[in-house]
């Protein structure tokens, strides 16, 4: 009988067997078995007390459904009067108790179909999140496994698909992971004095720019959600003569959780798994020939910087900043030279570069053809086709 699922929750209790027998007897009384002459008033009640002191009376058969209460009643002989009520665990508050007892009351009745029970269960967990949590906690302390399961599943459905922020909000949890912890401990790459120096220089330059902007009273744009601690400031640093502050926004030096900063264990959507079936792309071979389109203009740099989509916030990376470090002037000079060198090259005229690319391209070997049958790798390619 289905009732077995609910009563035989905790197998340590041999007394459950006894209780079960009692249920059967009561069942017969209720359903009009051979002893049905007994009136319903014969039902016995017991007393339960929750941690806040309030005491409830409940039918014994209902309460016995709970392993913990069952044990208290049978082993310790409690609960038969108001004065020695069964003391329930702290995590059981009156509201949860009420729900639990409802559950027990419903399920301890035999003869219900599986469908009925299932329908009841589905309705039973239609509660707000806080109630579900309290209920799960209470059921766990009363060792009422079915309710723990139901509430856990319901809570899992609440959580499914939510972002960490949303989950935090729903359950009122603290945002206590540090940036580093969210990313996993990294190798400490910043011991290299060259890097520290570079970072310091960038920081200084950025500070200078900030100060200049403050003086000019530029509006502060809201920071992007995604961490674009990018090299936009590097570009402005490189074009250091360019005082134009339009391309750069002032930042708030606030550590913010980066959007999808997670490391490799990136969430796999289903299509990742699905994509393993053979695929190939239209990537036929072909040398770069002379008709590479190079619609470039010398104003490319500024075009990029001033375009609306290039306006993003930059973030000061203070992780590596060590003010107390000694500055080696020779080193500083070297780095300055490096950066200037690069800036010069970066600002060089485009056509020159394209020529380089084109000449390299013509020497480049003909890249291998794609799969014959389109089912992916060339490895399966026979017929002596050049595999480049």
């Amino acid at each position: 009988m289905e009732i077995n699922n609910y009563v035989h929750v905790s197998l340590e209790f041999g007394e459950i067997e006894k209780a079960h027998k009692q249920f059967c007897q009561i069942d017969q009384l209720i359903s009009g078995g051979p002893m049905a002459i007994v009136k319903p008033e014969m039902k016995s009640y017991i007393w339960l007390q929750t941690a806040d002191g309030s005491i409830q009376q409940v039918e014994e058969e209902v309460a016995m459904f709970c392993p913990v209460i069952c044990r208290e009643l049978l082993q310790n002989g409690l609960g038969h009067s108001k004065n020695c009520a069964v003391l329930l665990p702290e995590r059981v508050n009156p509201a949860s108790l009420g729900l639990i007892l409802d559950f027990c009351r419903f399920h301890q009745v035999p003869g219900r179909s599986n469908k009925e029970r299932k329908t009841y269960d589905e309705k039973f967990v239609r509660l707000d999140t806080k109630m579900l949590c309290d209920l799960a906690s209470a059921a766990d302390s009363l060792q009422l496994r079915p309710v723990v399961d139901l509430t856990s599943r319901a809570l899992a459905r609440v959580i499914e698909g939510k972002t960490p922020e949303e989950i935090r909000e729903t359950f009122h949890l603290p945002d206590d992971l540090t940036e580093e912890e969210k990313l996993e401990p990294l190798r400490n790459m910043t011991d290299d004095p060259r890097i520290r120096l570079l970072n310091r220089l960038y920081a200084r330059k950025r500070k200078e720019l900030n100060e200049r902007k403050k003086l000019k009273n530029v509006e502060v744009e809201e920071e992007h959600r995604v961490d674009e601690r990018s090299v936009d400031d590097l570009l402005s640093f490189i074009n250091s003569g360019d005082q134009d502050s339009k391309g750069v926004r002032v930042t708030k030096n606030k550590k913010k959780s980066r959007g999808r900063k997670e490391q490799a264990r990136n969430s796999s959507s289903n299509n990742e798994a699905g994509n393993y079936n053979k695929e190939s792309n239209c990537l036929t071979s072909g040398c770069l020939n002379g008709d590479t389109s190079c619609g470039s203009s010398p104003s490319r740099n500024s075009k990029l910087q001033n375009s609306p989509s290039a306006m993003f916030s930059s973030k000061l990376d203070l992780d590596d900043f060590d003010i107390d470090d000694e500055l080696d002037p020779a080193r500083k000079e070297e780095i300055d030279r490096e950066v200037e060198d690069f800036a010069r090259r970066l600002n060089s005229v485009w056509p020159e570069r394209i020529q380089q690319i084109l000449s390299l391209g013509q020497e480049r070997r003909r890249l291998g053809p794609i799969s014959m049958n389109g089912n992916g790798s060339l490895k399966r390619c026979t017929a002596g086709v050049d595999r480049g």
Partner: protein
Amino acid sequence: MSHSFPEQVLKHLFSFLTSDKDRNSLSLVCKLWYEVERRCRRSVFIGNCYAVSPEILIRRFPEIRSLNLKGKPHFADFNLVPEGWGAYVHPWVAAMSRSYPWLEEIKLKRMVVSDESLELISTSFEHFKVLVLLSCEGFTTDGLAAIASNCRNLRELDLGESEVEDLSSDWLSHFPDSCTSLVSLNISCLGSEISFSDLERLIARSPNLKTLRLSQAVPLEKIPDLLCCASQLVEFGTGAYSSEMRSDISSNLEEAFSGCERLEGLSGFWDVVPAYLPAVYPVCSRLISLNLSYATIQNPDLDKLISQCHNLQRLWVLDYIEDTGLQLVAASCKDLQELRVFPSDPFGPEPNVLLTEQGLVAVSDGCPKLQTVLYFCRQMTNAALVTIARNRPNMIRFRLCILEPRTPDYLTLEPLDAGFGAIVEQCKELRRLSLSGLLTDRVFEYIGTHAKKLEMLSVAFAGDSDLGLHHVLSGCESLRKLEIRDCPFGDEALLANAAKLETMRSLWMSSCSVSFGACKLLSQKMPRLNIEVIDEMGPPDERPESCPVNKLYIYRTVAGPRFDMPGYVRIMNEEAAP
């Protein structure tokens, strides 16, 4: 949730959340949940094996039962990643053999697997059940023999499209007689002979076998016998589908196929002799998945077959299907979700079949559930793309491969910017996109503006300037993988969007215009990225810094630079490391 919420209930609750995305979210909620989650995580997916190390994995997740690991970048499928690049699984297997005695599943894609690794797997994990090797290489049938011999509870052995060196045909005999647990066996990639008797006996003693994909070496005549022992199959891949015409084969075949009442998927069909196709007609109406991408059958045989598959959800086929065949698909297969049309003769200068954009338009019109498309063709128009976009705003994966690079709209001779623009604008759930044809920076502007859910983008021979790349990097919020070849993208867009790279899994750029100097600078600024300069022509140091690099592979990592790369790969952060 109060602070007294019991941890065991939290753990129990977590057990109902199994998707990687949800698990990742759980771990980022707060310190307590991070701790609880990591201790009970059973399954991990690592999209880039170099983004994290085995040690980090093991330290964080002590209870892993299933590992899914990917190695080489996708463009390795087109031979763009040279031999010896990396993606060796052995360090992972070695580390896990010491720390995960309860490991049950290893799923790999594009990794190098040695026989030594396979042997180690077979002897280290008592409960090992699932081995999936997709597009892997480096092992032989000896390694498979070890797996067969030692994995007592093997349920799944899937060799995908791996390259396996066939040293002996009898590795199948290494499955002990007591092994009856097989549920899935895919040996379709094996080239040489196998022992039929071993195979037959293995199949006969595997009552739970649901998926069986044979290799080409298994002749048609053997299929009736095999299917008779395995009439419970759900997915079946034939071997070579040809034989000297003998009438009894046909009827035996038909009987055998009819006997498989649960069959839902068919594949294989190498060297098809059309006369034997009618043998599968009895199962067509039940088929959900049909892979004819090796089948060189043409209309009307092809038509006749497909028109009977009314419940088809997935169809992979060669372009012999032509526009007319696709129109038939549009009319007959109303449940179609995925269509892949492969080119039968990709290198021929002239089209050999009548497959045009019309075929795809027809399917997009007739199949309301179509959401995944991979389509090779020779011509396209903006109008067709616009129509497809309008018909199927529910498109999720759209990969169009016009065979000749830089092919314009053949009617108007304009670039296909507007067409792809319509796709990204209408298909708001688009997650994967491959571009082809003549394309300017404009198409990237559309993509950056509209493709907010796009996760993977493949680009070749497209764009005019850095602005194109900049649009994508700055606009596509969900972008995880970007692979580019032969486009005029250089330093600026890359440097300007350096931080974006840390939010992505990886970026591949080959035959573009990124300079060596920019790579250096990028690596200095972004210590959490590995910047791999791949140049088979020699170390890049000998050339000026402004010289463009041949191939560039950038990926985020918490494991730092790797040290298992060949001489032609240079990892830029090495300079920075102490």
